[in-house]
């Protein structure tokens, strides 16, 4: 097993066929790939943690759980709330930070605190020629040169293999509560969430789950009590509401109501377009809205997967946004465009970037195409 960056670099420069980049193996989204597996779970461990500077530097194969546990000892956390796909996919692996960052995996707090990419301060990676490259650093403000850190986040290993990331962390909160409005239509739910998110009360999660609106309020106790009460007043026109202090937000984060379904999509649109996406789906689809309506998880079992997929991406193309096929039978995944097709000029730029970072086209080849 590879245990150092130098070994990863050597492995890549000596590779004679395409490589499948693998962290915990919990996020194998995309076209089924052929090639040798480049396993990164041996590249594990925290290299620097400075709680007073709100920064942590970790090797890419480090399990997310391990990082969260360490941060917990200092009452800190990963504010972007990375989701875990293993429940949806049924994968047995352990989610690693490299996989989280390479897929820009951000949970419900995305709308208030930002995405995974917003917490990435620096990276070290190995490109397709085996060259080790660093960008960014470990300080919170850094505009020195181009921001390749952002480019690496979400590139799914197609530009280079992450070996180390430095992250901004935030203090944990003293208290959390959730305002719930039951039995709300998608349209009304988005209106209620929009009202809450346009208030000064700093909502850190806004979801529509099993027909109910959930709005999360976090912070110091006195502040949570004050803001929750204010929100209860503001949202009273949308129906009866109550506070649920123990709401489990991993239900939303990991799309738990969709676990066990055969086909799953993740759709990002502007929040007010959320209901239009739901309306267009056939009745066998189960759905969950996060990000105030802007993120929609869709799932079903059976049915014409290709037709549903094509229809979803056609909708997002018109509305502006993207739909990604997260889970489907292999035959489907090898025949459709898993990621939202982009304008030809953007496809050209992206493919030229990939050709320069990975001239032999061996890193997760064809994953994004």
């Amino acid at each position, binding site marked *: 097993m590879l245990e150092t960056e130098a070994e990863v670099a050597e492995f890549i420069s000596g590779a004679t066929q395409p490589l499948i980049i693998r962290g915990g193996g919990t996020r194998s989204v995309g076209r089924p790939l052929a090639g040798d597996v480049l396993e990164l779970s041996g590249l594990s461990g925290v290299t620097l943690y400075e709680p007073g500077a709100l920064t942590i530097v970790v090797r890419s194969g480090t399990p997310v759980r391990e990082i969260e546990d360490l941060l917990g000892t200092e009452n800190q956390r990963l504010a972007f709330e990375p989701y875990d796909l293993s429940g949806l996919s049924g994968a047995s692996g352990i989610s690693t930070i490299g996989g989280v960052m390479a897929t820009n995996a951000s949970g419900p707090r995305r709308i208030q605190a930002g*995405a995974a990419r917003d917490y990435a301060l620096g990276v070290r990676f190995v490109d397709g020629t085996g060259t080790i490259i660093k960008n960014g650093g470990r300080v919170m403000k850094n505009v020195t040169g181009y921001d390749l850190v952002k480019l690496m986040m979400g590139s799914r290993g197609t530009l280079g293999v992450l070996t180390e990331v430095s992250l901004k962390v935030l203090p944990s909160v003293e208290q959390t509560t959730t305002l719930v409005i039951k039995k709300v239509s998608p349209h009304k739910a988005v209106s209620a969430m929009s009202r809450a998110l346009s208030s000064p009360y700093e909502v850190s999660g806004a979801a529509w789950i099993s027909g109910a609106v959930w709005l999360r309020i976090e912070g110091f106790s006195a502040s949570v009590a004050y803001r929750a009460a204010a929100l209860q007043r503001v949202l009273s026109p949308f129906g009866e509401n109550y506070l649920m202090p123990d709401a489990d937000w991993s239900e939303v984060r990991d799309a738990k109501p969709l676990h066990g379904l055969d086909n799953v999509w993740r759709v990002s649109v502007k929040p007010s377009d959320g209901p239009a996406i739901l309306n267009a789906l056939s009745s066998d689809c189960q759905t969950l809205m996060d990000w105030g309506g802007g993120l929609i998880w869709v799932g079903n079992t059976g049915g014409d997967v290709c037709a549903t997929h094509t229809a979803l991406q056609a909708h997002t193309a018109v509305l502006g946004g993207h739909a990604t096929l997260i889970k489907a039978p292999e035959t489907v995944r090898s025949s459709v465009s898993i990621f939202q097709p982009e304008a030809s000029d953007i496809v050209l*730029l992206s493919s030229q970037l990939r050709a320069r970072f990975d001239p032999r086209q061996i890193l997760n080849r064809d994953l994004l195409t």
Partner: protein
Amino acid sequence: MLMPVPDPVIISQKKRLVERLRKVLPANAVIDDVVETRAYECDALTAYRCPPMIAVLPSSTREVSEILRICHEESVPVVPRGSGTSLAGGALPTADCVVLGVARMTEVLETDYDNRFIRVQTGRTNLSVTGAVEEKDFFYAPDPSSQLACAISGNIAMNSGGAHCLKYGVTTNNLMGVTIVQMDGTVLKIGGAHLDSGSLDLLGVICGSEGQLGVVTEATLRILHKPEGARPVLMGFDSAEIAGACVADIIKAGVLPVAIEFMDRMLIEACEDFAKADYPLCEALLIVEVEGSDLEIDAQLALIMEIVIAHKPVAVRESASAEESARIWAGRKAAFSAIGRINDYMCLDGTIPVSELAYVLKRIEEMSRKYGLAVGNVFHAGDGNIHPLICYDANRPGELETCEKFGAEVLKLCVDVGGCLTGEHGVGIEKRDLMSYQYSPEDLAAQMVVKDVFDSKWLLNPAKVFPLTVSKPHRSMSFAAE
């Protein structure tokens, strides 16, 4: 500062280029008169000046596309310009270039409160973006000190920060989409009102690319509802070390103020003379601001004050009114002007891990004695972004060069302690030649690959960001030998 030698062939063809540009632009949008082009000879890094060959002031994305297509065909370098407030020389022209200013592109194109974004033309100033949504109590969060004058285009080019980014992030965290025109005139729309990219995050690399990848003409920006209230507190300490330790303790305690600003005695006195903000006169001043309802502010300040008192402050004063708060911030935001009134100065912009604050300040003081130049310190203490202001006399021969040597030594120190050369102002020409100190040849090559892909002829702002010797093989043949 070494700049590429202007290409005499390009300059000899000025007349034809002006004619071609006049065909696609209104008459008053093409400036070729040698007196008038002097208005564009520098930005806020005034130590370096060079009038451009031509300046153009388009009003639309279509006009920008026409200009770039023509310049691409003629292989003429283009220097994009927002409001010209760059402290790094990001908009410094060369004698053979066309300056493309977006100052006439100031329209608000779309305001959507339900989805919490605004779409603007990028010549619009930072503060007037907030101005456009203020009636509904919304605001645009990034707040560089130059926000009254600086344009969104420049904010995107430099990934600008500000005093309040400890809580709200910098430009890249608040930018949702752009319309960008490539050097060959191609217009691209990237991102939009939805969150995050479905594929490669091109928006992320465009933001902060210093006008080298394309000209951003429209931007979709995240807007937020204003907090119910905000209250700054002034805290004076006997030394920078104590103030630095206090900042680290506040952050560690889990309280995250929206801003923590630091000033030393020299800055306090200069700001006081200039803005009359009633700052306590002491060795080190912190402005700590928290937000929320009165109840929330009181609760947060109680926690903060417990920590502050343990560090034995020599003065503590909470703002008692909105007017007083405004005055406190006016003083801080006028810091550069306040020093500029007294002296010529060079403003540095390194970032360091906050744990290194006290050490770095001590070293800067030693360097100040070594170079014989006074230095004042003002910075965003919460995130380690420091702004030492080195004073010099531009009329005294050699003093600018001494000042630059001093500045370079400070920035190298920032890198040595685990930080970086620039936190929010950008590299421009100012820090260009220090890039090799922070990055290896391989690191720089990876960045230049992006430039190659977006602008293969290296015509957009070509002499910036990368040391000239490093970028030379990449740059277009349109440059003569240096």
